């Protein structure tokens, strides 16, 4: 059973993550202690990564077979991730919806290629989404950029916006990043999440470009080890 815990309780969102990324996350403050306790509960309530994979595999396999119900389930579960990724890059509502629709058509077409031994379903879909966003930005002659997560306001036309559960993936990634040195977390966040170049990061942090690159590579390598070890010993992330 999926816990749905994140669907009903804010675990601190980007504020928490930035504290983690920039090395200011400590158990000293009440808020941090509360968040640590929340994460502990999350781990207890969440399915194991293997259970998550099994569920995900069934969805995309069913879609590959033409199961219409699985399409609806997949959208219910993952449309929020795709919508969030796209709306960090574009602010125009019609562009966002158009692009999200293109991404999911691509997902349906690619469903038969999903391999649960290589990634979670969310990661598989997120990879397609990210590629599409970058491609669209390059087609439009824009330098690919992503807005900070907290600037997210598209979709606010609906009352009662809901957070969706990315549960286990999120928890495992947080654990992996928590094991990194603060400077490694910082540059990985700026690169992978915010889409900044080595040069941009060096300018922003004052670190030499070579050091930025080294932090990213070593940090990613360590994170990959953690993710692999947590996902049932599978060979991929």
């Amino acid at each position, binding site marked *: 059973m999926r816990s749905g815990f*994140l669907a009903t309780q*804010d*675990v601190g*969102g*980007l504020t*928490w993550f930035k504290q983690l990324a920039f090395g200011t996350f400590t158990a000293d403050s009440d808020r941090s202690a509360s968040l640590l306790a929340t994460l502990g509960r999350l781990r207890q309530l969440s399915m194991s990564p293997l259970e998550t994979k099994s569920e995900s595999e069934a969805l995309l396999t069913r879609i590959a077979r*033409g199961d*219409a119900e699985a*399409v*609806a389930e997949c959208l*219910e579960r993952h*449309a*929020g*991730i795709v*919508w*969030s*990724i796209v*709306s960090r890059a574009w602010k125009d509502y019609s562009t966002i*919806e158009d692009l*999200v*629709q293109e991404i*999911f*058509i691509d997902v*349906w077409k690619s469903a038969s290629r999903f391999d649960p031994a*290589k*990634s*979670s379903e969310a*990661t*598989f879909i*997120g*990879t397609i989404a*990210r590629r599409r966003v*970058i*491609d669209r930005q390059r087609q439009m002659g824009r*330098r690919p950029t992503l807005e900070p*997560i907290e600037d997210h306001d598209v*979709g606010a036309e*609906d009352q009662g916006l*809901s*957070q969706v559960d*990315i549960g286990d*993936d*999120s928890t*495992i*990634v*947080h654990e992996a*990043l928590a094991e990194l040195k603060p400077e490694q977390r910082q540059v990985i966040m700026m*690169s*992978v*999440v915010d*889409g900044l*170049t080595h040069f941009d990061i060096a300018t922003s942090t004052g670190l030499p470009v070579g050091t930025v*690159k080294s932090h990213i*590579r070593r940090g990613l*390598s360590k*994170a*990959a080890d953690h993710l*692999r070890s947590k996902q049932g010993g599978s060979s*991929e*992330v």
Partner: protein
Amino acid sequence: MKSNLLSNNGRAFDLALERFTIGLGPVDHAELEALACDKDRKEFELLLAAIHIGSLTHIVHPPAKALGRLKRAGLEYLKARDEESDSGHDHMV
């Protein structure tokens, strides 16, 4: 196995990371394909995507109307695919 790109400290790593963060033009993309095998590139991309997706701690669901349209588009796609498949089968028969 972990992507070999993570132990690469040169051009291949730079290009693979840029492909994910800002995208590559055709020339750079061709260079990346020459420097790193498909398996390594995909493993590296999945790692970056996992970190990216996992960091989205606050996700906004699409509006209900948009979700409805996405579902309809998905069902239409499946229907068209099935019809195309049936049509192809008839040809073969």
